[in-house]
């Protein structure tokens, strides 16, 4: 009997049920979408913040001091300590290896321009970098760690096919100073430039560089000559020292967890248990610590400008989303309650009839609650699906689609389903309670006579 009443009520009052159902559906959609956005926004903003470049910097422990003011570096090109390029492979063995999204080693030398440019007496820093270098599963290098660098032309090939053709990219300020553009060739001073008649000692002329691109960085890189790392290693290590693979600095970008008070602790002062927890969290600090452990003679440091400020911004933006979700929940709750109340109020006559036919108040109430519950579960489930899809579409539209993150499986967060259903049930039942009680209090005969 109860089930039949329930069924009839849905079958006969399709339009009214639809209205209440739509209210619940939309409320659940909005709440699911907002919660979905709020839970993923942190990761997304974090990815956006990657434009600030490396968040971990690695240099040799026994390094000399950087004596660098603006674009003038007074650091001796040789004589410093070096790390080994081949040791970078060890980064792939650390605990958080999969969180490393970019690696850019660097080696600096200098270039005095020869040929026609010799008279200008210009020496520019010569920087060796990786360009689109394969590092395990990722392709990385200086350009990917400096998204603000704008290239006109192309980046040099890491391994030129022709051994005598070496490619370079020059900074935009340097290009103006030298009056050189893409396609020109830069020479090192030759014997005749230096005024040497016959070599007093063996003279190795550095191979010329072909300019394949001009980079505009907005910082001191605008005055640099950028070449593949192997070229500078060759120049710094000496031509007869094949296999020397020194690097002076490595920039690393890693996916990290925003810093909190625990992250700032010194791991060496923690208890063994806390130390394990600290070690196994992807803080920039702990990743830097692991990198320093993995690479011999290295010191790794988090870049505080990025890490420090990122935490605050992430907190603010996700905080905002959570609060808006709360506001959405509130609005949806009131709207759904109003819709449910309306649905009950207009059935005064029906209630009166059931009462006069001998149905107990409890029985009628349970019928109405069952209706509300069914509507809530149906509307809530559909709303969960719609909301999850909506959140996925919104995120994809706004933040673009990062690789491997937009499959449908990622759109649905299973934790949200019970949350949304519980909320829908709660709101529907709470919303109908006042009107059900009100309707039950009415005198059946009065209700039936006025026929409202």
């Amino acid at each position: 009997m109860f089930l039949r009443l329930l069924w009839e009520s849905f079958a006969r009052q399709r339009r009214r049920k639809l209205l209440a159902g739509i209210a619940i559906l939309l409320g659940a959609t909005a709440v699911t979408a907002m919660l979905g956005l709020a839970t993923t926004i942190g990761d997304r903003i974090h990815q956006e913040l990657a434009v600030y470049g490396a968040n971990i910097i690695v240099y040799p422990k026994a390094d000399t001091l950087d004596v660098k003011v603006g674009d003038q570096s007074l650091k001796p090109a040789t004589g410093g300590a070096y790390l080994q390029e081949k040791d970078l492979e060890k980064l792939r063995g650390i605990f958080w290896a999969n969180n490393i999204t970019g690696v850019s080693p660097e080696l600096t030398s200098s270039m005095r321009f020869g040929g026609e440019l010799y008279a200008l007496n210009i020496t520019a820093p010569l920087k060796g970098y990786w360009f689109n270098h394969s590092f395990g599963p990722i392709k990385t290098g200086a350009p990917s760690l400096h998204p603000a660098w704008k290239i006109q032309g192309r980046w040099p090939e890491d391994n030129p096919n022709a051994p005598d053709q070496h490619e370079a990219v020059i900074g935009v300020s340097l290009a103006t100073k030298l009056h050189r553009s893409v396609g020109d060739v830069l020479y090192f001073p030759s014997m005749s430039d230096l005024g040497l008649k016959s070599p007093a000692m063996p003279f190795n002329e550095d191979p010329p560089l072909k300019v394949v691109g001009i980079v505009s960085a907005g910082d001191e890189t605008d005055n640099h000559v950028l070449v593949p790392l192997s070229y500078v290693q060759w120049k710094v290590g000496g031509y007869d020292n094949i296999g020397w693979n020194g690097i002076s600095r490595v920039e690393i970008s890693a996916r990290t967890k925003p810093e909190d008070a625990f992250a700032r602790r010194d791991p060496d002062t923690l208890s063994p248990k806390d130390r394990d927890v600290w070690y196994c969290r992807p803080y920039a600090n702990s990743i830097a610590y692991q990198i320093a452990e993995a690479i011999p003679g290295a010191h790794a440091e988090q870049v505080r400008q990025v890490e420090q400020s990122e935490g605050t911004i992430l907190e603010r933006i996700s905080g905002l989303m959570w609060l808006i979700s709360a506001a959405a929940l509130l609005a949806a709750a009131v709207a759904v309650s109003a819709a449910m109340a309306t649905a009950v109020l207009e059935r005064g006559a029906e209630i009166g009839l059931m009462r006069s036919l001998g149905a107990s108040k409890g029985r009628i109430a349970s019928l109405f609650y069952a209706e509300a519950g069914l509507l809530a579960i149906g509307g809530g489930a559909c709303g969960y699906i719609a909301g999850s899809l909506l959140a996925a579409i919104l995120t994809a539209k706004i933040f673009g689609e990062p690789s491997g993150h937009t499959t449908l499986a990622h759109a649905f967060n299973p934790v949200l389903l019970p949350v949304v259903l519980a909320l829908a049930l709660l709101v529907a039942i709470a919303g109908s309670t006042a009107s059900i009680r009100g309707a039950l209090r009415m005198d059946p005969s009065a209700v039936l006579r006025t026929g409202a």
Partner: protein
Amino acid sequence: MSTATTASESISLSRILVRSLKHRRARSLSALAALTVSAMVATALLTLYADLNAKLHHEFRSFGANIVATGAFTDADIHHAREAAGSDALIAPVAFAVAATDRGTPVVVAGVDFAAMHRLDNWWKVDAWPTGTTDALIGQRAAGFVVNETAVTLTYAGQPITLHGAGKLSTGGDEDSRIYIPLPAFTKWTGVQPTVLEIQVPGGEDRVNTTIATLQHTLPALHVEPVRALVAGESRIVDRTHALMYGAMLLIALTVAVSVLATLSASVLERRRDFALMKALGASQIQLIGHFLLEALVLATAGVMLGYILGSALAWAIGEMNFGTATLPRISLLPLVLLLNLVIATAAALFPARVLRGLQPAALLKGE
């Protein structure tokens, strides 16, 4: 009979309205609640949205300077730059020199105004900011090349100076290799004037570009550059958050609007009997729709008044909780919210009117 009704129409319309709202108090209240919530949510979201840019740009100020000017400049130039950048900008002149530490290692020494640097470079990890006139801030890498950190002796062009190492600085950048000392002491010691102006203007890319143009115009001798990665990144994130907020706003507004529409039109539909009675008594279709419309509009206006106040309070609370600064109510949003609510109410009143038109009063009154 119909002439008698029309004669006293203006009175009876308002009376019908008041009585109909009073008589169905529960129903009117639920419609009012729905309209209040829709106005409240719209007000709160619009207020937050209007304030979002300023709030987010404010957060990005913790990244430090976003404009760097280099060149030789005088105190007058700094003054001009301050005027050009605006009163809300932070400006810190920095002077650099290469000196030798007590170990004989060359080190970059920077002369700065510590108070300005503290505000500008909030992200620096400093254990204690120097306060005295001969206090120095030692970069953590530079500290390894100093024998005595409490009394650091530096030599520049044969001139020694001894400073008290007040604190250590750690940034993970070039700053780690430097020693920072107060600017007056620096100038007296080296005779070198500041060559770098670090400037932080609040606001996005547009504001930065305008400021750069003004600075270049007033101080043509300086080389002014934006800190490009910072400015571009900031704009991207602010834009994305803005878009996200916009999407969220539309979504919530739509939800509330449809729910309110459903509630209101249900309450109109359910009064078919009134409708039939009035029609039987000679009211025209226009009069009836006018009545429903007026009732909905009165409720909508009352809802906006309440909702605007509640919504402004909600926006204020969210601003205070999340950003630590209050989001002030914007009266300019009131017309927009009112319009929004009136549109919802009108739609809610007109939607059932189409359904009602087809009904026969006689059949309805008979109870069929």
